[in-house]
């Protein structure tokens, strides 16, 4: 039953959910701990059963079949070893957690919880968040070692990084915790990215992600030219995770995590993820020179650095952390070897280390919990007060020191045996034993000062000795069990065969071949034993001289740290970031220049500049250039230049207006009367809008803006001129080419010419294109127009008013009500009023004819709308805002836009209902048999024109109205704004 493999993960996931549910439960932390420990323990048992049933066994369900990826699990000796360590120690850690957060030590957490409960209204002191995190981590870690393929493994791998981040930053009010958490995530996360890339190379080469495929692809992988790349990437991932030099720097800082997390993640499990990975992949990637040298050198360096740095520490947790670093180095170096004995040493060391280190960590937490300090300089003489703990730490410490009859002794013996293996190449064969002996001595020294300094030495400060006593049994039981196991495995007279077999299986999976594992402590007098004796005596000698050695060690190379590397990386990142944001200088002129130049770059790169074509076809054909055209052309060029060089904004705007009119003249001569007409009305409208907007800007601001626009250094001027000149040149070339190559008739023109009249009833194909063939474009363009109106309206009516921008000074002329007021609130001439009264109806008549006959002649709903709006603009100018609003009460602009747009959409749908397609032409007049004037047809094109006209009128008057709106007081708008502000 392969599904049993998924059970351990499900059980722990269940634990996570239960932990979250416990928020409101009336339990104490220890009770919660015992309750939740059931889940990892059940997972432990399930794993045992599953392993007993069959190994190796796999479980696989399709996860992303699109890419052939599965979610798969794999259980063999190696994953079982790790899985059992994770769930076994996990069970103890969860129990331990409950007690750790119990009582005095938890007071600060309690405070925090209480403060939180003030908001969430519940009374609970259970550290649900911690329980959930640690179980979540366990889930990720267990998934990592049980994963049956690289991608599944990676998913869980990243999961451990994230949960580790959450656990380290658990006491997030502490800055050190935040920094430590960030550092660990940065380093392991960076390694994770490398690892993913490395995995993808492996998958790419071996053709599958599952371990069976990968492990069978040794030949392809190791002989590939990509092998160095993928090996380095994977090694980077493993080394960062397993705190190998120089990435070890995150581990000591991770000790800001609560001790249960340190004990679990940062000694027993997570840091071994890299070890697991290397061991797992050894059969596929190992046994190459690169593998051997990299792993050996990095591992040995790390071993030595960790041992040395640990010997300098005063705080129990960093001391243990560095000894962990050292141990991890040992494991890496072992995986690098290609000898059976090395893998025997590997599995024994993994188990031995997990047992003694978790016991020591948890004990350190108890000491901290009971005495309030972990500093060796304050501790001492606790033997009488805490005899049980002394027993636990003593045993675990002996195991760490590698002394008989503890399990740790066996680990060290096998390690030395593999260090002195005859097959080692020249340099390593001396370096390996040497460093091992030296590191062994230092580790022994560490273990000794740990136990001695805490329990046996006289209190460092006799006046304030550390106080404490043995805690409740539930608290010391979790560390006691692994310590006891370390002892039992060592002293048991009969070799526990099941354990030896189990370890042999694990070693076999990592080595790729059979490994013989015996757990006998005594193997006779041989080289390893002698070396061991040397190491022990050296260690004892060091310990004897501790009072001289420790200060010397601390004085020696006080700044020996590669943290500078990390800090430097981050500083470099920040500096680059500043540079990146500085590019964003805020000057539109610069932005536009860069974009125009970049476009030029693209044109060059794509070989898109038609200069060659222009040079070939430089026929200066002047036929058709008559006086009028010449005039229009000169006017165009002159006014365009003027618009750039005129210094007053109003003049420049007028010049721009002239440019538009000159274009219109040119169009009219082309002849393109439709376009010319639209150009004229749009040009007038936009000039009016621009001038009106000028009046909104205070004079002083306008002057400053003008000054700023024209202030330019000489190089700047040259640069701008160059950019503009280049852009102009490109435009000229493109235009010339377009004119030369354009076919007289485009592909679509004959169709339009043929079908305009019969199918749409339009004599004018421009009209037919606008409202029939390409009606959707027109519909969207009037939407754009409407949106512009609405945007300007909202901006001026609400947004700037809210910001308190009052640009125009209030002037209250003393005049009777309803006096028509023009510009600057001056009364206007009655003669002009007559003009206005006359123009508006005229504009309406003109507009309506435009709409009715737009299909056949120049003019359409758009021009109609603009013309009427311009007439209304005249009213605004002559009568002033209030008078116009009063006199033209029907002019409800927003509604007009809404009606126009609705009509446009409904009209389009009318085509769907009656004409067979959205926007299809329908002649309602003919359909209903209406008597209509000749030349006019009640088609949906006409209705569309009306819709366009209404929308444009609404939007144009909305713009004109708001730009010409007196700003000093508007009770209506103020009331609306107040209503918005209140909510």
């Amino acid at each position: 039953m392969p599904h049993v493999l998924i059970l351990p993960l499900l059980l722990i996931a269940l634990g996570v959910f239960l932990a979250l549910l416990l928020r409101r439960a009336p339990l104490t932390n220890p009770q919660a701990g015992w309750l939740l420990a059931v889940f990892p323990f059940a997972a432990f048992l399930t794993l045992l059963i599953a392993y007993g049933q069959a190994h190796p066994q796999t479980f696989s369900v399709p996860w992303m079949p699109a890419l052939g990826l599965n979610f798969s699990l794999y259980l063999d000796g190696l994953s079982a070893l790790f899985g059992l360590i994770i769930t076994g120690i996990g069970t103890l850690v969860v129990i331990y957690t409950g007690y750790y957060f119990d009582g005095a030590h938890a007071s600060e957490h309690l405070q925090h919880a209480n403060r939180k409960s003030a908001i969430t209204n519940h009374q609970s002191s259970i550290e649900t968040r911690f329980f959930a995190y640690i179980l979540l981590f366990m889930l990720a870690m267990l998934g990592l070692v049980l994963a049956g393929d690289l991608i599944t493994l990676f998913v869980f791998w990243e999961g451990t990084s994230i949960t580790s981040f959450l656990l380290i930053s658990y006491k997030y009010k502490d800055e050190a915790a935040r920094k430590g958490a960030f550092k660990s995530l940065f380093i392991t996360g960076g390694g994770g990215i490398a690892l993913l890339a490395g995995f993808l190379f492996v998958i790419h080469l071996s053709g599958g992600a599952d371990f069976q495929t990968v492990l069978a692809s040794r030949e392809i992988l190791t002989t590939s030219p990509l092998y160095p790349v993928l090996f380095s990437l994977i090694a980077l991932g493993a080394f960062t995770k397993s705190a190998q030099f120089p990435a070890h720097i995150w581990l000591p800082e991770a000790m800001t995590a609560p001790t249960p997390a340190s004990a679990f993640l940062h000694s027993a499990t997570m840091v071994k993820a890299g070890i697991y990975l290397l061991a797992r992949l050894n059969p596929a990637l190992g046994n190459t020179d690169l593998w051997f040298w990299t792993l050996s050198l990095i591992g040995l360096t790390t071993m030595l650095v960790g041992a040395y740095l640990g010997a300098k520490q005063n705080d129990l947790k960093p001391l243990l952390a560095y000894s962990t670093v050292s141990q991890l180095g040992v494991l890496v170096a072992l995986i690098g070897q290609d000898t059976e004995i090395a893998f025997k040493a590997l599995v024994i060391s993994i188990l031995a280390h997990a047992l003694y280190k978790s016991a020591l960590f948890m004990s350190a937490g108890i000491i901290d919990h009971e005495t309030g300090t972990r500093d060796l300089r304050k501790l001492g003489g606790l033997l009488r007060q805490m005899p049980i703990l002394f027993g636990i730490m003593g045993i675990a410490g002996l195991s760490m020191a590698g002394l008989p009859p503890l399990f740790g002794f066996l680990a060290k013996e096998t390690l030395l045996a593999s260090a002195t293996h005859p097959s080692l190449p020249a340099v390593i064969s001396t370096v390996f034993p040497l460093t091992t002996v030296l590191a062994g001595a230092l580790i022994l020294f560490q273990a000794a000062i740990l136990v001695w300094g805490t329990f046996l030495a006289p209190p460092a400060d006799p006046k304030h000795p550390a106080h404490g006593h043995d805690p409740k049994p539930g608290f010391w039981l979790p560390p006691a069990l692994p310590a006891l196991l370390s002892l039992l495995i060592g002293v048991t007279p009969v070799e526990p065969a099941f354990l030896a077999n189990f370890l042999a299986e694990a070693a076999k999976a990592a080595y790729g071949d059979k490994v013989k594992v015996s757990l006998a402590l005594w193997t006779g007098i041989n080289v390893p034993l002698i070396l061991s004796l040397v190491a022990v005596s050296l260690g004892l000698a060091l310990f004897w001289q501790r009072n001289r050695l420790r200060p010397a060690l601390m004085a020696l190379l006080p700044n020996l740290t590669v943290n500078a590397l990390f800090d430097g990386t981050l500083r470099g990142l920040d500096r680059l970031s500043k540079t990146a944001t500085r590019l964003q200088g805020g000057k539109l002129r610069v932005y536009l220049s860069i974009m125009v130049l970049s476009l030029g770059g693209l044109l060059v790169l794509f070989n898109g500049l038609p200069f060659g074509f222009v040079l070939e076809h430089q026929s200066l054909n002047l036929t058709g250039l008559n006086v009028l055209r010449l005039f229009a052309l000169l006017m165009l060029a002159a006014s365009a230049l003027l618009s750039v060089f005129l210094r007053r904004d109003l003049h420049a705007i007028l010049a721009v207006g002239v440019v538009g009119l000159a274009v219109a003249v040119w169009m009219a001569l082309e002849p393109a009367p439709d376009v010319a007409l639209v150009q004229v009305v749009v040009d007038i409208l936009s000039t009016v809008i621009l001038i009106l907007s000028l009046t909104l800007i205070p004079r002083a601001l306008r002057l400053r803006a003008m000054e700023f626009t024209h202030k330019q250094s000489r190089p700047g001027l040259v640069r701008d001129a160059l950019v503009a000149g280049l852009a102009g040149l490109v435009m000229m070339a493109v235009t010339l080419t377009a004119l030369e190559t354009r076919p007289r008739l485009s592909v679509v023109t004959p169709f339009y010419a043929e079908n305009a009249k019969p199918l749409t009833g339009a004599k004018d194909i421009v009209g037919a294109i606008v409202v029939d063939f390409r009606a959707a474009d027109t519909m969207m363009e009037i939407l754009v127009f409407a949106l512009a109106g609405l945007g300007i309206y909202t901006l001026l009516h609400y947004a700037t008013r809210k910001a308190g921008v009052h640009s125009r000074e209030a002037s209250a002329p003393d005049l009777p009500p309803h006096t028509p007021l023009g510009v600057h609130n001056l009364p206007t001439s009655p003669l002009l009023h007559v003009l206005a009264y006359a123009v508006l109806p005229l504009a309406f008549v003109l507009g309506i004819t435009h709409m009715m006959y737009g299909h056949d002649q120049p003019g359409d709903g758009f021009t109609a709308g603009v013309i009427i709006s311009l007439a209304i603009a005249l009213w605004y100018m002559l009568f002033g805002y209030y008078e116009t609003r009063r006199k033209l009460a029907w002019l409800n602009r927003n509604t007009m836009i809404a009606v126009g747009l609705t009509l446009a959409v409904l009209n389009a749908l009318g085509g769907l209902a009656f004409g067979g397609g959205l926007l299809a032409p329908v002649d309602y007049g003919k359909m209903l048999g209406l008597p209509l004037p000749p030349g006019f047809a009640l088609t949906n094109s006409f209705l569309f024109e009306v819709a366009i006209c209404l929308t444009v009128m609404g939007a144009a008057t909305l713009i004109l109205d708001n730009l010409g709106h007196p700003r000093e007081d508007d009770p209506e708008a103020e009331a609306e704004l107040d209503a918005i502000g209140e909510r």
Partner: protein
Amino acid sequence: MTVLPPLLLPLLGVPLTLFLRKKRKIQSALALTLMLAALGATLALLATVLTTGEPVTVQLGRWPAPFGITLTADPLAVFMLLMAHLVLAAGFVYAAGSTEKVVQYPTFYPLFLALATGLTGAFLTGDLFTLFVFAEVIVISGAALTAMADDRYGVEAAYKYFYISTLASAFFLLGIGSLHVSYGTLNLADLATRIAENPSAPLTMAGLAFLTATFLIKGAVFPFHFWQPDFHAAAPTAVSAMLSSLVVKVGVYGLLRLTTLLFAGQTGLLPSVLVVLGVVGVIYGGFGAAGTHNAKRMLAYSTLAQIGFMLVGIGWGTPLSLAAALVFTFNHALVKAAMLMLAGAMASRAAVKSASFEVVVGVGKYHPFAGVLFLLGGLALAGVPPLNGFISKLLIFWSGVQAAQYLPLAVIGVASLVTLVYVVRSFVKIWFEANPEAKPKAGDRLWAPAFLIALSLGLGLWSQPLVALAQYVTDWLGDPSLYILSILR
């Protein structure tokens, strides 16, 4: 006909909500209803396309292509549409629960619906000029919405955006003009056929350059990105979430159409340019995001980087890398919208309404749920499993390995570490650091980001549907004649 409802529903909403401008609650309810209906219609459209295996095409006015305007929901369009309407629906939900003043202006919903219309239309149209018009709809509504934002820099940002967009419009028109002069048609399918027949017309490559520049501006790709950080940071939160997640994708979509349809096989240096600009964008955006002091601005810069990943995928041009770019596009939309909403929601809970880190520091203390969402979203951005961002990263890396593009791969790999740095830093700032001035305060509702993050998590845990869909689209894109035949029968 199923192609119409996703477009017509928001379009009709513009005037309808304008009629209802005085009744704000009904207005907002109507807008939301319409958008949800449009989402439903999009799903129906997707189902139709998938079941028939054919695009759904409508010739507007029943004018045969290429004479009229074609709307076509081909697999790519429908893919983008699904992304757009999922996120848009969330955006309208967010707006309904927003405490910003801007959402209460009578024209907010008409403009917002117009933005939705523009986006929908841009993806659905089969006509180059109509694409231009829909892009204009997007520009004007986006600019108006940002100009009226509560943020006092809104006007400046909108002004710059509008100015630069005008430049983009000019480029767009030049591109359209160059192609129209050379080939006499505007229909995408027709243009593609004619360009393939005669790729060496004098203005063909000029047209490609103009259109490329246009879409690079639309997609805010370095060095055409200058409008983006200000604009996305200053826009009202509900809108900014759409701008940074969807509107820039119009550029990505345009580039996809250029490389796989219009100029398929004739792209010259365009793919290399895309890879280079993508890599530069990934670096620049990443560092820019790490260097800002404002959460919304950080996320805006992050979009620069994320778009870079998509460009790299498009540039590599292998089936897997295109699928990766599509998956990236989709996932990024969900996550970025959610993250901007969360940043805005935290800003709305700060003492002064601002997403500046100085102001929002420590605000998260009273909002742990938002913190969970933000952390998840941030991890998704950084491509950490089990979130959808991981799938994006996995695919893009994988396609890089397959295509043997080691240098770009190395650069984007390192740059994705920078993503992790800035998202974690901002999370730590808002949720972990202490700020005595932070007080419990109600703010924008969290429904919309919660929905999007849930979707991101769901698509991270079970990404098969999305990846399969992206592969389906990629297969379709692999053969431009399929598109052409579906329109010019």
